[in-house]
Each structure stands twice: as C-alpha cells, then as structure tokens.
C-alpha cells in the first residue's frame, strides 16, 4: 500500500481528484447553460412565429448581455445586485450541506431587516463604524431568531422544515408589515401627509459607504462595501465548511446521518447550529437595500430575494465559489430585462423563463454528472486492485447481498 500511495502522490500533480471534480462540475454547468440557451432559442423562435414579432435568438441574447456589459452603470448594477444574492444563496446552501432545506430565507431576511432597522434607529448615539457593525449584528440576530423556530421544531418534533419555514415566511411578512405600520412608523413632522408607509430615515452613521464613485459608476443599486463583505463571507463559509469542525460534522450529517451519529456526532445539535448560521447569513441579505440604497425600510421593500437565493444556490451547485459566479450570472440576466425591453420586441418576462430553464437544466445535469462520476470512480478503483486479490467493489451496482433492488439494509 505504501508503494501505491507514494506512487500516486508522486503522480499526484498530474491529476488530483479535487481538480477533476471541479473540471467535471464546470463541464456540467456549461452543458446546462448550453441546454438552457438552446431551449430558450426555441422559445424565442416559437414566440416570434406565433406573435409575428420577428426576433432571432442571437439578437435577443446580445441585447441581454448589452445591459450588463454595454456600459459601466449596468455592470455596476450587476456587481451590487450580487451581494444580497450571495448572502441568500449561502444561507440556503449551508443548510443544504447538512441535508436540510431552508426555504425560509425570505422570512429570515425580512425579520433581519426589521431588527437592523430597529438598531439603526435606536443606537443613534454610536459613531459611524460602530453603528454599522451594530446594525449588521442586529440583522444577523434577527435572522437567527427567525431561523431558530423551525430548527427547534424540526429537532424536537420532527416537523419537516420545508413546510414550517414557508409558513414562517408568511408570518414574517405580516409581522414586519405591522412593525413598519406601528412601532417604527415614520411620522412626517414636517406636516406633510406621508402616503407611503415606511420607517424613519436612518442616521448617516449607519449607512454603508459607496464604492461606485471610485469607478465612475452610479447604478440604481449602489455598488458599495456590501459586495466586498459578501465576497469575504463566501470565502469564510468555504473555510468553515471545509476546514472547520462544524463544517465537517455538517457534511457528515448531510451525507449519512446514521454513520455520523454512530460516530458520536449529535445530529440535532448540528442541525440547529446550521440553521442559526443560515439565519445569520439571511439576516444580511437586506443590508444592501436598506443601508446602501434606500436609507429607510419601506413597506414596499424588494421581496423575493430569499427565493432567488435558492435558485442561485442551485445554479452555483451549492459551493461558495459557484455561488459567487451564479450570483453574477443572475445579475446579468436580471439587468438584461430592461435592455431586452428597450432593444427588442421580446417581452421582459422571457428572462424569467430563461432563468427557469437554467435552474432545471442545472439540477438535472448535475444529477446525471454525479452518476457518471460515480461510475468512473468505481472503474478507477477497480483498476487499482491487485489482480491476485481482487474483490468486487461493494457498490458496483448490485453485488452479492447488497443489490440496488433495495437490498442494502
């Protein structure tokens, strides 16, 4: 064995497994992209034919890309937009690594916005950097608190987190609506009648400085330090998942709860910790809207980022690096809505269809790629076996007493 190991290590530089895995994943993503583009083209042609609009796929796709790469402000928007998406997708993927589905990022981020607003309006005596940190902290705490409920219910009663988190979303929407209309409501003391429900404006000390001006960018979503924070968070999450105990335990629980438990890992503790981390990340989703763009919490806040985060997480195959790229890609598509409308006759809703196609093809392609990877791993492993002593890999599809016809007990 030592000889085998040494030989492999020496040749390790030739083809390390992790590199092959990434290569395989990249291939899968590109294939999925290609399929989505292809299917999208079919829809464009069908739509054109059906409604006499007369657009061709190339023009359409070019128009979409123009929105982001045609001018600096467009690109700035894509970057700024990516920040909240990264937080949202990271929140989803953290739980997913542990085998759970946190569909409640939407509710957690909304509550996080409320608690962050509360902090901004209460701790006004703090100077700028401290107030910003306090605001971030309260945002995370709000998200964590909201995520704790379904987590505890799951661990104590077994209630499935998919349904409970979604219900919590509904409750959050109503709760925050009440908060905006009640305790934190903005009374315009200038005597004017305020039509739009919202909170008081936040003190300047709470706002996050703009970065776009450094590059001459003024985009509708302000490019600010939030993006850097998001990238940093992604890197931190990578480290947590791969190099820290909690990440290790989470992956073990997600991949094989029985083996993890028999090994002494407490499944319930891991699940709750994951949900709390997830909630904290979710609580940061709204920071861009509130503390870089708007300056207050409006009743008509931009909702839906929690769900988009799920899409981005799937697109990025739930790895922090993939998520960053997926968030950027999503931003390009979102920005493409406007340019599509301006430059072509395709309805802007085509973008949503394209996004849907992309998610579906990524999910399916990923599944197929995973199976082919297994088959290849098994073939490789068999080749290593000493011929004199070769044994059939236990999982080579069915073998004695452990067939895939449900016989692995």
């Amino acid at each position: 064995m030592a000889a085998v190991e040494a030989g492999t290590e020496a040749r390790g530089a030739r083809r390390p497994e992790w590199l092959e895995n990434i290569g395989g994943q990249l291939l899968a993503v590109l294939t999925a992209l290609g399929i989505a583009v292809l299917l999208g083209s079919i829809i464009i042609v069908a739509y054109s034919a059906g409604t006499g609009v007369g657009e061709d796929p190339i023009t359409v796709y070019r128009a979409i890309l123009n929105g982001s790469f045609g001018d600096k402000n467009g690109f700035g928007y894509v970057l700024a937009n990516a920040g909240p998406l990264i937080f949202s997708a990271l929140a989803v993927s953290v739980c997913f690594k542990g085998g759970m589905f946190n569909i409640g990022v939407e509710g957690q981020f909304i509550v996080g916005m409320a608690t962050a607003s509360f902090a901004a309006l209460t701790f006004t005596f703090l100077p700028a950097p401290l107030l910003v940190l306090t605001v971030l902290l309260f945002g995370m705490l709000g998200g964590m608190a909201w995520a704790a409920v379904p987590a505890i219910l799951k661990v104590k009663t077994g209630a499935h987190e998919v349904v409970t988190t979604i219900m919590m979303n509904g409750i959050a929407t109503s709760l925050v609506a009440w908060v905006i209309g009640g305790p934190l409501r903005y009374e315009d003391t200038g005597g004017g009648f305020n039509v739009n429900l919202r909170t008081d404006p936040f003190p300047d000390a709470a706002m996050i400085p703009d970065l776009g001006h450094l590059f001459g960018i003024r985009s509708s979503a302000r490019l600010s330090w939030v993006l850097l924070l998001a990238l940093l968070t992604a890197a931190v999450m990578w480290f947590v998942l791969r190099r820290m105990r909690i990440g290790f335990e989470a992956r073990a629980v997600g991949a094989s709860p029985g083996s993890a438990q028999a090994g002494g890992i407490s499944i319930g503790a891991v699940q709750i910790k994951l949900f709390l981390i997830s909630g904290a990340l979710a609580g940061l989703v709204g920071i861009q809207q509130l503390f870089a763009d708007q300056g207050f919490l409006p009743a008509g806040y931009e909702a839906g980022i929690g769900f988009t985060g799920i899409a981005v997480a799937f697109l990025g195959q739930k790895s922090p690096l993939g998520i960053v790229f997926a968030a950027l890609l999503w931003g390009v598509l979102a920005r493409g809505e406007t340019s599509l409308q301006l430059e072509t006759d395709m309805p802007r809703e085509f973008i949503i269809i394209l996004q849907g196609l992309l998610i579906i093809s990524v999910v399916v392609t990923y599944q197929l790629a995973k199976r082919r990877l297994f088959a290849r791993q098994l073939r490789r492993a068999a080749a290593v076996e000493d011929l004199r002593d070769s044994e059939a890999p236990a999982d080579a599809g069915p073998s004695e007493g452990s067939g895939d016809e449900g016989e692995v007990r």
Partner: protein
Amino acid sequence: MGSDGDGAGRESASPLVVMQGVSKRFPGVVANDDVTLDLRPGEVHALIGENGAGKSTLMRVLYGLYPPDGGTITVRGREVKIASPRDAIALGIGMVHQHFVLVDPFTVAENVTLGDEGGPILHAEDAEQRVKILADSYGFHIDPAAIVEDLSVGEEQRVEILKALYRGVDILILDEPTAVLTPAETNDLFENLRRLRADGKTIVFISHKLDEVLAIADRITVLRRGAVVGETSPAETTKAQLAEMMVGRPVLFRLDKPQVQAGDVVLRVDDLRGGRLHGLSLEVRAGEIVGVAGVEGNGQRELANAIMGLQPLDGGHILLGDRDLAGVSTEEIRDAGIAFVPEDRHEQGLVLDMTLWENAVIGRHDDDEFSGRGGVLFIRKIKELARRLIDEFDVRTRSIESTARTLSGGNQQKLILARELETDPRLLLAAQPTRGLDVGAIEFVWGQILQQKAEGRAVLLISAELDEIYALSDRIVTLYEGRITGEFSPDAPAEELGRAMLGGVVDRAS
C-alpha cells in the same frame, strides 16, 4: 454424505434451462464471466461461491432483472430474451430474494396476487381463498388475510415462495434462503423443498453454507470471481473440497483461539428494556469474547444501538466498569472506551460520499490532536492518521482522497476496524462483522477480533452466522425476543443452541 437420492433417477432428463456463455459487467467489475450452466427438472441445484462470486447476479440475469452483456439463455429448447421479471415468470422462472420484497402493510393474499390480480376490480375474499388452497396443497401453513408486517421471518419466506408458485413456476430460485432462519425453520424449509422437487420442480439454491448445500442438493455448481470453476454432486465431494474450489486455496474453518485468563467484568448489561428489548442482561469480561447468537429481528440491532447510546431505553442499566452509560451521549460512550463495528457499514459505519481521510477521523475529529479550540481542523495530522491506518490494515485504494464508496466491502470493513481499534477501546462491540465479505476478508477480521482478546480487551460479538459464533466465542449466549435465553460453551451442539434461539429455555451448559 447428505443428499437424498431422489434426484438421481432424473439425471438423464434433458435440461430445462441452459445458460450458455453468459457475461454481465458493472462499472469496474465483471460479475459474471462466460458462465455456462444447466438446470434439469426435478432437481435441487446448488449454486455456491463466496460473497462477490457472482451467484446472485447470474440468477438475476435469469430472472430478467439485468440484461446480460453476452451469451444466450435457452428455455425448453428455445432461445429466449428475458427482459423483465414478467418475461421470466411467463417462462416459468420465479425468484425469492435474499432480502424479502414484500409490501408490509398489505395482506398475504395481496402480496401474492400483486401484478396478477385477475381483473381491474379487486375481490379480496376470492384472492384469499385461492391463496389458501395453493398454500395447503404444498403443506404451507399461512393465513392469507394476515398483514405481512406481523409475520415471522419464516412465514414471510413462505409468502415469497407462494408468490412464485402462484404464478405456476417450474423453476424456483432461492437466494441465500437460510440466512435468516433458525435451524428448525431450515429443516421445515428443506421439507418443503423436497416436496416441490418430488412434484417435478427445479430449485436453484444459492448459498455459501456448505453443510446445508451438501444436505439438500443434487448437483452443485461452484463460482469463483464470476466464472464457473467446477460442477459436482454431494456424493463426489467434501466440504473442504468445496471450500477450496470456492476460494482457490485451502481454507481453515477454525482459527486458533489464544488462551487468555478472563479478567474483571468490563461491560455489564442489566435488564434492558425498550423497543425490541424485554429485559436483556449479560456481561463481558476483559480478555473474553462473548458471542450473541440469534436469528435477525430478535433485538440484535437494538442491543447494539442501546449500548452505543443511539436508542432511548425504557429501563435497565449499561455499566462500563463502574459507570452507568444509560442516557449518556454517543460521543461520551465512545470516549469512555467502547468501539463499534456496526452491522450496516453504509448506514452506521462510513459516510460513503466523504473521502477516506475524512472517514478515518469520524469520532475523533474533536480530539485535541485533530482540531483546535476554535474549531479548525488539523488536516495534515488527520491525513497522517489516515495513511497510517490504511497502511496497517492493508486497505486497498488509489489514494486517501478517494471516497469511501469506491472501496470494496472488505476494504470498507477494514477501514472501520482500523478506525475503531485505533481508539484503544476497553470493549469492542462487533455486530455481523463479516456480513457480505469474501473469505480473505473474513479471515482478516476474525484475526483482528482474536487479537483484541489476546491483548486483554473485552469483545461483544453479535452474529447470525453460527459458524462465526463458534469460531470466535469463549462463551455463547442466545438471544430471543429481546432476552437472553441460554448460555453455552463453544462445545455445545448446534441443536441446543437452535432450541434456545427459538425461545426454548435451556439449562446453563458447562
């Protein structure tokens, strides 16, 4: 030798089924390699080989569950393509799998008639009536209206056989049928098989239990690593010869047990209650191997889980030395010195999708040696550990970065053993430790277990294989319905053990 002579007169009958040059491949392995085999009417044909030899796969090809990659199958003189179980059944071929495929919430009659209900509307009484008549005609005792979930293992097996007979099969394939039966139930089964044979049916008996094969078979075909290495009959061979054909070299059936003076009591289990446990008590001393014999389903899994803290208890104590472990977390139990080799290495042993080095450190990942206070893992140290374990236990793999899924069953078990024994435990709890392993791996595992005893540790062995119990144990206890029903020395005859395994309370033997 054992076999009844009934089949002898029919040796000249022309074959019913001929599998000619059949091959079957899966990613990374050739399961069947150019196999030629024939089946005659009115015979019991045994198909033997060690785990991984290809016996089940070959019969699954015959039953239409897998398409063959090469070769032909001829039934009653005509070459056929069997693309699904439906085709096989239409040709008169039926199969009873090693792990039963019954729908638990359905009745016996529903299970038997599923797929052949006789019309779009169900008539439960008619179905039950028909099933009862069929069962009686073969001397099977079964209640067609019973819910399968409530049946015993032996009864479930009868339902499986009835499923095949209901469809008028002439050839009945049984895959390791006695793995889950007590000695008495095995005798009942053989009675039924003889009756079927007398009726002109063909039985294919897949097994690795040589004593039984010699007792019931008319002809024996031996497979090794996917290929046929011999065909013989009980009159022409011995158990040792068969074993040698199966493995390719002479096989020892007993290893030398080291003589060790048993020390203090390390583990005492007292009146455990909960789930399938109904007042179980036993004790294990340092330097001794206690074997828990019993048919699956009598509380083995629950006993192991209870000791490891994986299952809540309604009552009872588990004492490791002076410490009561009932209610303590699994992590603490492991830290206290119990190592666990689980019966299901995929569900409770390894995380298949994680790498070997990650698997090597599960359970010890929070030791100071492998992770710091802040929670950061010392990857380099962990990989060193993994390399050492893999080296010492000769786990064959391309690299430690491969996932556990790529290891063969024997290598997976070796990795688990390596990991668990590294903790220098006071007690080794091993449940079905050699299930699904080939002879080489079995010898290795047995050697390791005996080594633990030689080093003065306590071993609690839970196994459904009597061979293993006899080979390793210093003391044997029998488990039935969640209680210990008898204690024996390794010299006790199997029939006595068998009786205790069925609940007959036996006086303590010497």
